[in-house]
């Protein structure tokens, strides 16, 4: 009864999430048209990282420097303001196996496949996945990935090439995409 284990764990995950989750994130199991809840598919929202105060180290990091609001030492990421929809598909083998995490198809990011599936080590059964990783950790991990792509593990050509070859165009595309996904509220 591995399905029982998966559902039990997911019920716990949902319970924990309701009591405590990072601001701006949404994670809830799918509700079917007949009103029943499907714990195996979760609809989530990942907010683009808001950045923070400009520390010396961060300022040297190209691509993270803010758009220069005068007298403001706060930097922001190009992803800020976007609320990106992500769907988690859990299998009956969860938590032995990780969920498949999908953005909408053709999501612009070097580590997202054209299908929308996220390529991230902690989501790889043969690499960094551990059954103890929580939904919260997955979502925060993906939020980090948005702003910090991994060029050694590309999943789409367009995002990867622009990231490597044309930083300005890459930045523009990222900001465009953030505007495509405004806050729901």
């Amino acid at each position: 009864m591995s399905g029982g284990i998966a559902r039990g764990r997911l019920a716990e995950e949902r319970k924990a999430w309701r009591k405590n989750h990072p601001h701006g994130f949404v994670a809830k199991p799918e509700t079917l048209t007949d009103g029943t809840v499907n714990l195996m598919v979760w609809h989530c929202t990942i907010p683009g990282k808001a950045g923070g105060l400009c520390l010396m180290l961060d300022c040297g990091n190209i691509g993270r420097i803010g758009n220069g609001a005068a007298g403001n030492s706060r930097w922001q990421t190009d992803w800020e303001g976007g609320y990106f929809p992500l769907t988690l598909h859990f299998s009956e083998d969860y938590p032995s196996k990780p969920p498949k995490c999908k953005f909408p198809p053709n999501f612009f990011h070097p580590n997202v496949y054209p299908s929308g599936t996220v390529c991230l080590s902690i989501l790889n059964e043969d690499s960094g996945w551990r059954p103890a990783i929580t939904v919260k950790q997955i979502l925060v991990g993906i939020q980090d990935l948005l702003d910090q792509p991994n060029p050694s593990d590309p999943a789409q050509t367009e995002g990867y090439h622009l990231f490597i070859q044309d930083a300005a165009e890459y930045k523009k595309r990222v900001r465009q995409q953030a505007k495509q996904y405004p806050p729901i509220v």
Partner: protein
Amino acid sequence: MADSTEDFEPLFDYSRVQPLNFVSLDDDDDDDTASPALSPKRRRIAKPIVIEDLEENTNVIQIADSGKNEELDWLSPPPKVSRNAQRTVVEDSTLKELRLKKKELESFAQSAEDVLRAVEESVKLQLGSSMQSSLEAVADQPSKPTCERVKIVISIQDKDGTKQFRIYMDDKFERLFKMYADKVKLDLQNLVFSFDGDKINPAATPDGLGMEENDIIEVHVKSS
């Protein structure tokens, strides 16, 4: 190894058991005088095994006879009696204490009963004095606490942290939102509240949204 031998040492260290003057006697005449000193111990421990010395044997038999049973003889040395005596002495004092406490408790219980009786009587008197028509009102009263409005704690989370509020399950959110806006000194117009990613209608209630204890409402400040 050293530790283990140390552990066992006290068990067989007869010098600790024996009075000091006997030890000094032992030094004078080794075997003969030593045996009477040790005999009481030896008799008990080695009873079934030692058959060499006739005198000792007879002694053993005597003791066995008086004790009827070897094990009983073993277990019924004089100290037991003294222990019993001690016990009874101790028990006496504790029993006294217990009795005193019991009396105290009884008096407490008695006074509590008296109070209860007094209350009951007063209630009966009140009931009696009030007209029978008021029985309906009395019937209403006990039902009130059971259908008391349920309260839950809900956290409102902004970018910097959460604040907890205790609200009625069937209370409209607008009251909570106003409370929050007052607390953070922000214009309610600029605040957007959401639950599970959906904007909350101020006319909705926690009950209506299926909220549970400690659920989180997120607040976003409109950037205008």
